[in-house]
């Protein structure tokens, strides 16, 4: 991507996310019950169809080819590489979240893997028992108390929320690697991320195929799975099993074992 394209792309994404984030809000009762908040369902569904087309005709075949041709160890190496490049940014996010320890861990991962992992292609940090870090600006916003907002499906990126969409934009522009003075390759982070996504698409091919192509309503499945998984990553309240949706035995529609 040239600088101009990157700017244009970012601006478009930023504009759409700002519009989305600015509009609808969910009332607190339905948010507490873990309901899906999807006021832009019509638009989202058309973007979903677009994304499905992109996947079917470009991304899926490319990913399948990639994991067929490239040995699994190398696929893993490229994943490590992309992950490593995101570590300085993650360190900043952890700091913004007030989590000094995690910030330090992210930085030490970056240092250890860059030096001892051949520029990040390996993951010796894990061998030294340095825990993995996985955070982003979406999580920072969450920590700052910003609500999830509406569900959105972003072109190319797929399922997201207004908050996490805004996070993607911020992460994209604030990655410290992008500001390095002697950057070895322009936008290396973006390329590495595409390669990482290819690898994941190929590795988890069956799971993704079953959601996108085998379910009766792939949009609803992807939405539900994304939101649940994201809430889980952000340390959602596990006691929600006790609620109506987690405990089929206490489902108001069920009376199988009642009395």
């Amino acid at each position, binding site marked *: 991507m040239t600088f101009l394209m990157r700017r244009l792309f970012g601006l478009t994404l930023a504009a759409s996310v700002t519009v989305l984030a600015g509009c609808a809000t969910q009332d607190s009762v339905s948010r507490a019950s873990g309901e899906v908040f999807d006021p832009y369902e019509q638009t989202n569904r058309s973007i979903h169809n677009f994304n499905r087309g992109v996947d079917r005709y470009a991304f899926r075949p490319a990913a399948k080819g990639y994991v067929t041709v490239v040995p699994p160890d190398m696929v893993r190496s490229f994943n490590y590489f992309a992950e490593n490049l995101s570590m300085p940014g993650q360190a900043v996010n952890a700091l913004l979240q007030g989590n000094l320890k995690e910030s330090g861990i992210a930085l030490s991962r970056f240092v250890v893997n860059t030096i001892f992992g051949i520029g990040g292609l390996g993951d010796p940090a894990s061998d030294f028992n340095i825990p993995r870090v996985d955070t982003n600006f979406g999580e920072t916003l969450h920590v700052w108390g910003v609500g999830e907002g509406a569900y959105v499906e972003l072109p190319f990126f797929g399922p997201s929320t207004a908050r996490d969409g805004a996070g993607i934009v911020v992460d994209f522009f604030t990655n410290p690697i992008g500001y390095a003075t002697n950057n070895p390759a322009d936008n290396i982070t973006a390329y590495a991320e595409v390669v990482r996504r290819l690898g994941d698409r190929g590795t988890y091919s069956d799971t993704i195929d079953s959601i996108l192509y085998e*379910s*009766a309503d792939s949009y*609803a499945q992807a939405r*539900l799975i994304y939101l*649940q*998984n994201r*809430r889980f*990553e952000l340390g959602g309240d596990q006691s929600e099993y006790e609620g109506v949706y987690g405990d*089929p035995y206490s489902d108001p*529609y069920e009376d199988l074992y009642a009395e």
Partner: protein
Amino acid sequence: MPSSFLTRRTFLTTGLALSAMAALPRQLWALTETGARSLVGSVVGDINKVIASGKSESAMIRDFEKIFVRYADVNIMARYALGVDGRRASPGQLRAFTGAFQGYIANKYGRRFREFIGGTVEVQSARKIKAGYEIKSIAKLQGQAPFEVTFLVSDKSGKEKFFNMFIEGVNLLLTERTEIGAILDRNKGDIDKLIAELKRIS
């Protein structure tokens, strides 16, 4: 004779192992971490046995269906997946739906048994929840990053059985309720057509 002695010993060991397995469900009444570990362990063991049998894929899926019925509270799971629409179903339709649902689940997840080859599930902790117990575990499948799987177990059916499962926070029953709801919508709410479609795709 040494050979018959050996046979006898093997027989005894096998007998012991079998009776230990038979005692499993009762051990679970006081569901400790050990109990949780053995319940999860025996499901994983049974699944691996089927995979190792080298049978045809369709025969394996039939075996997975038996495992599902043995370890899971299929009735409550099917009812939950059907949701509100279950209220207008006749008892006959509910029975037929439950049968179709168990075949559908066995097929949907059983078809992907290859991902499970060489996989392990390590129980991390068990705790009491309202309907029974929650067992947290880490699944390690080949070529994939380890992920968290949470099993929910209840004895409300009269036996300790799994009734739900969360993979990295994704609720299996809720996901299936969405899917069943979508198939039902596609069939304009006709429960008989839903049952027929589930049978067709399983």
